[in-house]
């Protein structure tokens, strides 16, 4: 016969929270759905990067065929092309028939005939504007060289070289940098990943709360742990699972982006990843108790969607508006203002940090405001959860949940 246990070992709050969090991680991290969803997101990201990589190289490369006299401009063409960001590849082409065939086969973008001073260009449908400018420039130089020689200039090339050195000196007030496009791209991907992570795992918190209510296991749990311990453990556990996915996806994405050459600014990308993690933690805590409170109002899985939707709408609003404003101008006042609004900041601010120019004090201010909101909403959400989690049957009104006592 067993003896009555004499030692009343109370469960320390930290232990209770750890046990609850551990259960969430154990039951979610090793599941097929976690592996599958991670793989799918990575696949989508890889597809996007491949598309970017091909667009990137296509947009800057031209293949030019040269015939007869025009063969002599191969060198100047490459040099002048580089100056306007064109990667010019030249090949020698036999005659017009061969040129036509190669153009039709898409092996060449343009073929140049005749005298360099009066070039004739054969293209499939239209001539790239930059290539046209380069060709005109070369023709002008040819003409100038001839005219200068006629005018008795002994060394026309020296004059031309001097002329070609002329440049405009540019001083920027707010430098966007050559990496502007890349920064914007990284920022947008980060915004997207954050939105996905917070909404997916936030909804999971609501579903988890309802699962416990629907299965009534919550009554057994609350007989031994306090509501706040159960709530905190759940939020921390699911939050960590979400964080693991975010880091895996963003990390793999980063490696792919750098390896494929789409992203050359690995420093910026790593910075974006770090800020992304920081804002995920803050943003997830901000939304998780809201999701949990929403979930605690209902008792059946079928009803989760209806209570979660208002929360998701706010999050989606931040995502859509933030994305659009950022595409227009990542340094615009609209984005700047929204990046300080607590429920929108976790999605918008990290994008802004990567894509635009943000002062340190702005980040600090936004973080402080958001953390204050986390405290306020955790208190509110915790109260709703505490009062509603044992309520079964019909949907509970938020007002009753805020006021009620058990």
């Amino acid at each position, binding site marked *: 016969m067993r003896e009555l246990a004499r030692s*009343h*070992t109370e*469960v320390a709050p930290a232990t209770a929270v750890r046990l609850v969090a551990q259960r969430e991680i154990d039951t979610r991290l090793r599941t097929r759905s976690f592996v599958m969803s991670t793989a799918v997101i990575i696949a989508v990201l890889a597809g996007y990067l491949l598309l970017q990589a091909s667009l990137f190289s296509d947009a800057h490369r031209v293949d030019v065929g040269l015939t007869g006299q025009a063969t002599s401009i191969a060198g100047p063409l490459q040099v002048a092309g580089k100056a306007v960001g064109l990667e010019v590849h030249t090949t020698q082409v036999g005659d017009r028939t061969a040129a036509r065939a190669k153009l039709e086969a898409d092996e060449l973008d343009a073929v140049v005939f005749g005298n360099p001073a009066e070039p004739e260009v054969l293209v499939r449908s239209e001539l790239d504007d930059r290539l046209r400018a380069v060709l005109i420039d070369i023709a002008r130089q040819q003409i100038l060289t001839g005219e200068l020689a006629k005018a008795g200039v002994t060394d026309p090339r020296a004059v031309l070289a001097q002329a070609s050195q002329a440049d405009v000196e540019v001083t920027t007030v707010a430098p966007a940098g050559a990496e502007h496009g890349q920064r914007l791209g990284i920022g947008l991907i980060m915004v997207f990943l954050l939105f996905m992570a917070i909404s997916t795992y936030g909804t999971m918190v609501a579903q988890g709360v309802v*699962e416990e209510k629907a299965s009534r296991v919550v*009554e057994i749990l609350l007989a031994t742990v306090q509501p706040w311990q159960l709530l905190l453990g759940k939020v921390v556990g699911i939050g960590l699972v979400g964080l693991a996915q975010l880091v895996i996806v963003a990390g793999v994405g980063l490696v792919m982006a750098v390896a494929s050459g789409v992203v050359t600014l690995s420093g910026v990308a790593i910075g974006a990843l770090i800020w992304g993690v920081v804002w995920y933690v803050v943003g997830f805590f901000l939304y998780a108790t809201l999701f949990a409170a929403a979930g605690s109002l209902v008792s059946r899985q079928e009803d989760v969607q209806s209570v979660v939707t208002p929360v998701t709408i706010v999050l989606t609003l931040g995502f859509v508006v933030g994305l659009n404003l950022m595409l227009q101008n990542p340094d615009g006042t609209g984005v700047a203002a929204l990046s300080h609004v607590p429920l929108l900041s976790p999605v918008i601010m990290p994008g802004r940090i990567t894509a635009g120019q943000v002062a340190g004090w702005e980040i600090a201010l936004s973080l402080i405001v958001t953390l204050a909101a986390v405290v306020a909403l955790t208190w509110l959400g915790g109260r709703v959860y505490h009062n509603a989690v044992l309520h079964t049957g019909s949907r509970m009104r938020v007002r009753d949940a805020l006021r009620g006592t*058990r």
Partner: protein
Amino acid sequence: MPEHTLAISGLHKRFGQVVALRDVGFTVRPGELFGFVGSNGAGKTTTMRIVLGVLNPDAGEVTFGGAPITRQVRTRIGYMPEERGLYPKMKVADHLVYLAELHGLSSVDARAATQRWLGRLGLDHRRGDEVQKLSLGNQQRVQLAAALVHEPDLLVLDEPFSGLDPVAVDVMSDVLREEAARGVPVVFSSHQLDLVERLCDRIGIIAGGRMVAVGSVEELTASAGAELEVVAPQAEPDWAANLPGVTVVAEEGPRTVLRLAPGADDQAVLHAALATGPVTGFTRHRPSLVELFRAVVTEDGGGSRHA
């Protein structure tokens, strides 16, 4: 072992306009099996949830070993809620280990206790299965294991026998007896009154949120009075009508059924019967718990609960 007595006193609870409990109180001593019976909605579940601290009473208190039930004490209670609840997708053994740890057992102890209860309840071969894949009867067994896995000092079980097959009822009865035998006070509610009568040391009947009877089966049935069946072939009609403390229930030829008021003397009835001539039958019926329950519940009625 007075330190393990559960004492409930003066509980009041009101939900909106409905008074769920009025001055509910009873005690359950160590090693005692206490049957808590009452109609649906009488207040059994509300009382149990208050004991577990899942619900707060408007007034009254619950003590265990003389001290109010604190959170620390609460982790030492084994609880089976009326609405069964386990995570459907968790594996049986994992689930029990989790609950044991939440109740303060170390990981090693939790595993050992899980192993022991799975064996005791014949669930060893299902340990790796998800709870939802088990039959309802087996889910009930897991639920019982969940209430017992942390070796509680007090058991509070809401309808532990509902939905069990006869074999499982026997297993459950044995387990409850064993737990009581090691000194644990056991409170359980049930609608199966024959089972309660057979199993329990003491019984509490609740009706309309009020305790209408508390005591051992003998005490309750004795106090409720007994029925006498007398067969006296030569007796005149109404021969028993004027005996003190006696009500005539039925008279059919030589057979007379009488109800004795509590404390009334059955020997006086026998003398009176013998005075009429030969007595060929004299039987005393103790009312069964079912009859007693019907009597007190209809008498006290569930009605007029609105404040």
